[in-house]
């Protein structure tokens, strides 16, 4: 789960990572009140989880009440690379002497956390690597030992940052590592990491991704919402406990098991179709889950045909067939369905579908034939 800047900064404050003072606002009035409370000048920042906010005009300096009001009005509702801004963060303006880059990332290949530091802040990691591959200092941290002072010193010297801030930057990295572990993060990125005119080191931005599997032990992060990012269909699926990802095609897809669903999307694309979604009804899919899944898929108005691809292992094909029959009783279905049932109790499942004689449902035996059929029907 990707957090918004202000949410990341709430976690930073909790773990004593220095950040400029700021307030969250979801209306122009709240933004103006926050600005007056903080004292001018302030920076009004769009809260969307995407890079390039600044370039899109989503970050503005306000010297007085009138400017704060004008900027808040302009930014709220603005489109930043496809996302609508619904929330703001109002922050005390900082005086900038140096901009660095700092991050703790989850290195999947090495299966270790990696700490990174560069003196070239303000640009993204790819840009830094392109400009000067040696400008990014990187170190793995042993997860059983944790971040040591020497890690901070080595990174600071290797990154070539200003000598007078080597200690505070090292301490900043140590605190960010603490956030990474204590908050079950997969990524903690600060860009830019700021050195102010009075040589204080503060986190000017916060990009934090937390592990969805660990939310049970973090009530505060579990309650965070990101109203600009959540697609209505994805939200509906989440509420029903289904794994759903919206895509931009017109072939609705349901399968059981993440790998099989991914494979189904590929096979539909190979047959010339465009998948409308990824939906994993899960292992052991029961009838009510199938009804929910059909509702979620059909709530996307672009869907013109639906493919059910089930390979029964623990999931029983007769259960899936019963679920589909129930779904057709409860929901008005206007688009054609192609159903492929194979594996555990597949014959019984196909018999249930044949007996129910559902309108507009074609049953296919193989995955490839089913994909070809649904693509033909979707046109």
């Amino acid at each position, binding site marked *: 789960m990707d957090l918004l800047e202000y949410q990341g900064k709430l976690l930073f404050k909790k773990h004593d990572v220095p950040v400029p003072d700021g307030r969250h606002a979801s209306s122009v009035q709240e933004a103006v009140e926050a600005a007056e409370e903080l004292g001018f000048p302030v920076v009004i920042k769009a809260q969307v989880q995407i890079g390039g906010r600044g370039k899109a005009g989503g970050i503005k300096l306000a010297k007085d009440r009138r400017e704060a009001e004008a900027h808040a009005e302009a930014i709220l509702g603005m489109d930043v690379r496809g996302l609508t801004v619904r929330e703001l963060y109002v922050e005390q303006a900082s005086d900038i002497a140096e901009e660095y880059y700092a991050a703790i990332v989850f290195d999947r290949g090495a299966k270790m956390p990696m700490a990174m530091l560069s003196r070239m802040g303000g640009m993204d990691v790819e840009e830094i690597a392109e400009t000067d591959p040696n400008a990014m200092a990187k170190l793995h941290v042993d997860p*059983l030992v944790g971040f040591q002072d020497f890690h901070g010193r080595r990174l600071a010297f290797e990154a070539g940052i200003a000598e007078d801030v080597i200690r505070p930057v090292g301490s900043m990295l140590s605190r960010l590592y603490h956030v990474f572990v204590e908050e079950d993060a997969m990524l903690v990125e600060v860009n830019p990491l700021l050195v102010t005119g009075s040589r204080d080191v503060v986190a000017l931005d916060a990009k934090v991704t937390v592990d*969805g*599997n660990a939310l049970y032990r973090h009530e505060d992060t579990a309650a965070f919402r990101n109203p600009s990012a959540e697609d209505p269909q994805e939200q509906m699926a989440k509420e029903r406990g289904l*794994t759903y990802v919206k895509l931009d095609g017109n072939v609705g897809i349901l399968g059981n098991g993440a790998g099989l669903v*991914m494979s189904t999307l*590929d096979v539909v694309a*190979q047959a010339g179709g465009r998948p409308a979604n990824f939906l994993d009804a899960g292992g052991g899919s029961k009838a009510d889950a199938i009804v929910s899944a059909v509702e979620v898929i059909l709530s996307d108005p672009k869907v013109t045909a639906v493919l059910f691809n089930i*390979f029964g292992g623990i999931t029983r094909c007769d259960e899936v067939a019963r679920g589909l029959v129930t779904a057709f009783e409860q929901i008005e279905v206007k688009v054609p369905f192609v159903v492929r049932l194979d594996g555990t109790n597949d014959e019984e499942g196909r018999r249930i579908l044949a007996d129910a004689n559902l309108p507009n449902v074609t049953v296919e035996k193989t995955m490839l034939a089913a994909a070809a059929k649904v693509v033909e029907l979707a046109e």
Partner: protein
Amino acid sequence: MSILVTESTRLVISGLTGREGSFHGLNNKRYGTQVVAGVTPGKAGQDVDGIPVFNTVHAAVEVTGANPSMIFVPPRFAADAIMEAADAGVELVVCITEGIPAQDMLRVYTHLKRTDRTRLIGPNCPGVLSPGKANVGIIPAHFFSEGNVGLVSRSGTLTYQIGNELAQRGFGNSTIVGIGGDPVVGSSFIDIIGLFEQDEQTELVVMCGEIGGDEEERTADYIAANVSKPVVGYIAGFTAPPGKTMGHAGAIVSGSSGTAAAKAEALEAKGVRVGRNPTEVAEVAVEVLGAKV
């Protein structure tokens, strides 16, 4: 032979008294796996259909000599259960549990690697099946028969799909290993393919990958340098958009890394033939090994 689990497997199941644990544990037993013990703290002295339950893995191992262990406890207790099994001296731990926090797995992975005594399969995996010998996990065994194809996969149902395509063409399996779909899993493609290379029964290896990480790429290099047996690959997720997790916690394309196209290219560059869909994987297997039916 097969790899990892055989007729001599003596299985202990952490979480045997739970709903899922008893359902699948008893399924494994019916298949012929020797299930010698269960572990649930506070339930020592009970039994599940004749399988004795112990309070600790240590007690279960001491009394029954169990090895391997299978973990079927909820995600918040699973990392601890893996550590307990390893501490009790179990050499192979198969963890089925889905949803274990990645930070917990980082610590478990590093500890197991450092002590170098226990091999972990999973978590978030369907387990290990050696057809005709033993089933440890949730793989529906009735689709599979004994044979010469070793199958290793990050995904469950996709494994059944590909296994079934192979079965329809007359191929059986030496062992089927689900390594799991999480960002941190105990065993990699490289670990398992290394075991298949040493296994006399295995004549062909099918590896079934998916988007996310760079393990398939590293496996391609390993195969080129160390594997003499033919390997056929499959990668799921060509149509996955960047930045979206496709069901498995580890299945995500971040930036330009982890794409299915890059993985398939890396494998093909090292001489591994990659099927574009499950049916084509089976067709390539027929070409390599010769038709059976």
